[in-house]
């Protein structure tokens, strides 16, 4: 199988890569671009650990082909902080102990950021249903939901 050249934008920077037609965007990010923040927990869209933004919407990168990145705008966890300044969600997650092993955390942060951009003042139930596709096995979700709400309040108020 020949590789296909793809030009895209990742975290605001232009990027180019070659990939096979059947490689997923997740494979490309991790194996070809060294962006290992997105994780493969299942490869079938059931866990959300591979979540990235694709043209402004949160997707499972394991369910997107690498070639579909052509001309698209992609945002990954690596682009969430601004230089050395963490995004409020990132900072609040640490402060509120909303992570333990941390492997689900990049996906949850990307998904939570997408929620707050769409709905800056969600109820707990809305947060829980939005994040239903992001599995966490360590925390029982409690501190995650609380951290999202604390960050949301800060982002509304600040």
């Amino acid at each position, binding site marked *: *199988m020949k590789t296909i050249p793809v030009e895209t934008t990742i975290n605001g920077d232009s990027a180019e890569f070659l990939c*096979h037609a*059947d490689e997923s965007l997740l494979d490309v990010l*991790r*194996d070809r671009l060294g*962006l*290992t*923040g*997105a*994780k*493969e*927990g*299942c*490869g*079938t869209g*059931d*866990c959300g*650990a591979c979540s990235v933004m694709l043209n402004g919407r949160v997707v499972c990168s394991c369910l997107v082909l690498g070639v579909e990145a052509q001309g698209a705008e992609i945002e*990954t*966890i*690596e682009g*969430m*902080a601004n230089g050395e300044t*963490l995004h409020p969600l*990132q*900072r609040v*997650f*640490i*402060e*509120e*102990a909303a*992570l*333990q*092993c*941390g*492997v*689900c*955390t*990049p996906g949850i*942060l990307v998904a939570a950021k997408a929620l707050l951009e769409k709905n800056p003042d969600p109820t*707990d139930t809305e*947060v*829980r*249903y939005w*994040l*239903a*596709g*992001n*599995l*966490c*096995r*360590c*925390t*029982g*979700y*409690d*501190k*995650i*939901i*609380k951290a999202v709400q604390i960050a949301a309040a800060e982002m509304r108020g600040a």
Partner: protein
Amino acid sequence: MAFDVKAERKFKVVGTRVARPDGIDKVTGKAAYGADISAPGMLHGRILRSPHAHARIRAIDVSEAAKLAGVKAIVTGADLAQPEDEAFADVAINCLARDKALYDGHAVAAVAATSKSIAKRAIRLIKVDYEVLPHVTDVDAAMKPGAPVVQEGRALENVPAGMSQNVTTRYQFGHGDLDAGFAKADRIIERSFKTAATHQGYIEPQACLASLGNDGRGEVWCCTQGQYMVRANCAAALGVEESQLRITASEIGGGFGGKTSTFIEPVALALSRKAGKPVKIVMTRDEVFKATGPTISTSMDIRIGMTRDGRITAGRGELRYSGGAYPNETVDMGAQAAFAAYDLEAVETVGWNAMTNRPKEIPYRAPGAPTAIYAVESVVDELCQALDLDPLDVRLLNAARKGTRSSYGPTFNEIGLVATLEAAKAHPHYTAPLGPHQGRGLSCGFWFNFGGNTCVSLNINDDGTVGVVEGNPDIGGSRASISMMAAEELGVPYDKVRTVIADTSSLGFNDITDGSRVTFAVGLATIEAARAAIREMCRRVAKIWDIDEDAVIWEDGCAKPAGPNAGTHPPMSLAEIAAIAGNTGGPIAGHHEVNADGAGVSFGVHLCDTEVDPETGATKILRYTVFQDAGKAVHPDYVEGQMQGGAVQGIGWALNEEYIYGEDGRLQNAGLLDYRVPVASDLPDIETVILEIPNPGHPYGVRGVGETPIVPPLAAIANAVSRAAGVRMTELPMSPPRLLKAMTG
């Protein structure tokens, strides 16, 4: 090492909520987990697995696969050593089968190739000649004489004659006169229970990058709960010396016991040795379910007698567990834990293990206890209902306390069960009103907690900071807690201490991260190492001040004269002492090696409110509160995190998680779509109440907390459902089809 009673201590660091050291790396995606590292020239490994639950492997023909361009090495079980030690031999055979495939998914061969897709194609070209054999996946069926035999000659001597060869062990615990006890009861209830196997469900699949040269020297990067265990297993499986392997533990994306053994590292090393290149293997989710280490599946009988005012007079349990296709001892712990919460005159538990054609079981958070205690707590609850007694009062009446002779032998020291029960009784949750189709349930929980082999090395850096080197992968925030204990002991701020986890070449042997042992044992060793460093710093200062060593004390991070007789010397801070260490004898360090004992058991109580839809059997968790004795909560956020995380795993176990086998012995739900772990919208907030009854065996009173919280949810939910829906669920999970059937008949 005893609890520091005289330090009726005003802790300055321990007990506060500091930021964890790995936080920034984890929220930015920088943290490196098992699959995140690559090496130049590395090959990709892929494993071929048996599609049969039980089959003799007559021949393996790799010739077609070997011809595929890009394939650099192929291995089978013949490429691994045959360790004499049974435990190592079982691990090696589980990594690559020898003469038989023992379960659907058992590894039979592996390939290393220049790309993932070539490796995938290559394993499909390997031809395996199987002779399919009859299989057995149910524990009761496996125990019957005449059942298909999974492995021959594996039974221990204490197994009575005439049983199937699948029965490998028998345990018995207890004391007192059962017959007399039951005779005193006003009511006796006997019930049988069955539970399906479950999986730890860590989000990160096993992954490793391994390199092994012809000279027997190798390196492995892997996600694991024990790099020393990986080293030992790999050395035995590859026939090389342990000291020649350096194993580095990556950040770990969840373990819960499921990464306390090796499945892919020996295979990657064997491929690397053959190919002369590093080999990376990452398991798919499908492989994780089929071929790592799920829990036991169980069949249990419980019989309990109670007087009409709630005193348990006798309890008997028979536990039949299956740990998969190899001998397994989890039932030992289940049998010990089953009645541990109670002060009983007459109690007996008998535990059996039987082999089935299922994956090799390894621990999952309090292994053996959740299912056993589910059964016991269900029967206790049913007795409460039958005798119209308050379930909390009955627990209080029968609770184990200091001085109770436990059901498994030892006499309890200070324990926190009564405190947790009283806290539950006083909590508003216990008396909150309930609506139609709603019910409240409770359950006690227990875990032994362990100590174990531990090494810590603590270095006073020349800039006045402190480095702690320990050997236990951090699965719950332990690096922060270790740093806190070092900071507390040394009297320096938390952010002056950095704790790192050593590879196997950089520190002496450490037992795996399990048994809720790290905050306890590594903490204890860290405190001792800090005290050793303190003694050395005081010795140096005594020399400087020209006074006796015992005239120098350590206080608030400084060496000080012990009293006015020692003379007037301004205190010397750790930083000041460190800055001149080169002139006073050289770098300053403390270290400690121990096989720690004195771990304190941790009791907990969970309260749960459920609502059951009478037309569909759907169960909603309305409210959940976890009460647990932590001894001393070093970092309260992390203790809460363990309580919440363990409770939710138990909720999943109770409601929807199960291994589903077909008639053909194959696993039907090897994915996260149909292996149903709780999602965020399934749950309410999980409220936590931490009790602190200090463990006499630890200087700060620390008890392990990680495992106890998974134990109570199974019965708490079954008991709540019983009151919400009027049915007693004796089979787990209580999935809606089962619950609806029980309700409607």
